């Protein structure tokens, strides 16, 4: 196993030896259930799909992912273990990637545990399972985007509360920029290309596109480049501000 893998393994195990895993997963399931069934009117809609479930994912992630990401580097700094980690024979990239992948994998586990809701729609009706699979995939990609942002912000502070709040704000920007309300505000006066640009920067726009069931290469590239960009920024910031 490479060093990315070794760090990945340690980090992932770290979630499960602390109450983080249990708390996160329970809250994740609870919130996604509440959103879907109450706010999303899952039953009254009378349609066999998971649209109400996936529609709330950007909002769910907005709160939960920064909470997960805030400790990635801030804790490492606070405990001083960052000094231990970076005096081992490891590159910044390997450490950043290993930690990120572990957090992403953990999110994937939480997401996978929502499978009962998928079973439920299949029992109740005949949903388009292709769309559902695509939506899960899109949701995971979006989670990766949120995590990469959180990782970067966590790298500049040893204070987890600051990391959390800043991440929520930045993530909010990335969600809202594609939101009809926000775009409506710009549309009367802004030129088309600007509207396009703003909305094309949004997680929301790309996620909605994927959750229609079509995995367009552009959406995929978008999310992957968002992750690459923020992770790259993480390594730069770590290099620059390693010792605070």
């Amino acid at each position, binding site marked *: *196993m490479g*060093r990315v893998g*070794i*760090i990945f393994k*340690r980090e992932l*195990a*770290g979630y499960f*030896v*602390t109450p983080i895993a249990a708390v996160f997963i329970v809250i994740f399931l609870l919130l996604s259930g509440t959103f879907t069934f109450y706010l999303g009117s899952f039953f009254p809609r009378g349609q066999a799909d998971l649209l109400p479930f996936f529609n709330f994912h950007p909002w769910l992630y907005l709160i939960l992912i920064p909470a997960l990401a805030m400790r990635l580097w801030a804790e490492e700094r606070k*405990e*001083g*273990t960052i*000094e*231990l980690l*970076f*005096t*081992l*024979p*490891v*590159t910044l990239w390997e450490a950043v990637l290993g930690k990120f992948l572990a957090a992403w994998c953990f999110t994937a586990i939480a997401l996978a545990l929502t499978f009962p809701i998928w079973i439920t729609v299949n029992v109740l009706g005949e949903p388009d399972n292709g769309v559902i699979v695509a939506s899960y995939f899109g949701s995971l990609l979006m989670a990766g985007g949120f995590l990469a942002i959180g990782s970067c912000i966590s790298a500049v502070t040893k204070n987890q509360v600051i990391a959390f709040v800043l991440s929520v704000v930045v993530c909010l920007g990335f969600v809202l920029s594609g939101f009809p309300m926000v775009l409506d505000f710009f549309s009367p006066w802004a030129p088309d290309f600007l509207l396009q640009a703003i909305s094309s920067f949004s997680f929301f726009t790309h996620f909605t596109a994927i959750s229609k069931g079509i995995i367009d290469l552009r959406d995929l590239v978008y999310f992957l480049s968002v992750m690459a960009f923020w992770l790259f920024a993480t390594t730069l910031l770590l*290099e620059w501000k*390693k*010792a605070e």
Partner: protein
Amino acid sequence: MGNMVEIRRLRKVFGSIVAVDSVSFTLSQGEVLGFLGPNGAGKSTTMKMITGFLTPTGGTVKVNGYDIQDQPIEAKRGIGYLPEGAPLYPDMTPQSFLGFVAEMRGFRGEALRQRVADTVKKVNLGSVVHQRIETLSKGFKRRVGLAQAILHDPPVLVLDEPTDGLDPNQKHEVRTLIKAMAQEKAIILSTHILEEVQAVCTRAMIIAKGKVITDGTPAELEARSPSHNAVTVRVKTGTATGVLEILQGLPGVKRVEALEEEEGIQGFRVIPVKGQSILAVISRCSRDRNWEVVELSVDRGQLDEVFRSLTMPDQALT
């Protein structure tokens, strides 16, 4: 073996603070170098640059021939490092933590298990290997930190205050461990305990305000103390009169201080002129005059005196 650590004009500036200012030295196998210096002298900062955690503002560090900037991975392979305060992952157990470090250091399978088990034994962690690090006492935490530093048997060890906060027994154990490894390694340690330098170091370096002030063996350092070669004599008061004046008149004597008299025994502390050895003269003199001497001893010199006089030159020694 040649130089295992080569440091040239190392410099680190934090904003307006010059933490390390043009530090140069080389270290070869078998040497145990002790960094001494007041708080904020730049000892930890120097160590952080040697181990590749901090990027120097200027200068170069070579470890086992590898430049820490150009070939960081190769250089780091040959270094074991105990950072100041021995930071550790609090949620792990020593077993899982050392397993992680061993894996990062390239050990796998049976070799890994053997390596972890050996190290655990070396630092006496046996009873707590499955306890969460967070719940360990300071002494055990320090040992876990030491264990991760020596696990891969590195040729170069950098230990930042390895005995800080340990009880006297544990201090002794750690020093014994360091001495046992000294032969085949090059070791740099920092400490505020001057006896530690005398106990384990073959070389002592005093650093103040980021600069190296002295570099020599502990004995050489002691020799710079005003009380180096000072002689303490205790004589029965009944058998001798005018001792102070007589001692004062001996060749090579700079000054004599009368110590407190207790139970009919009077002590004197005889300070020599710098560089002179006066034991023989005093010994002969007391024999000739038939003083009943109960103690006659030579002072090697006080490291803390040297330390104070070098790091606070404005305040003259009293």
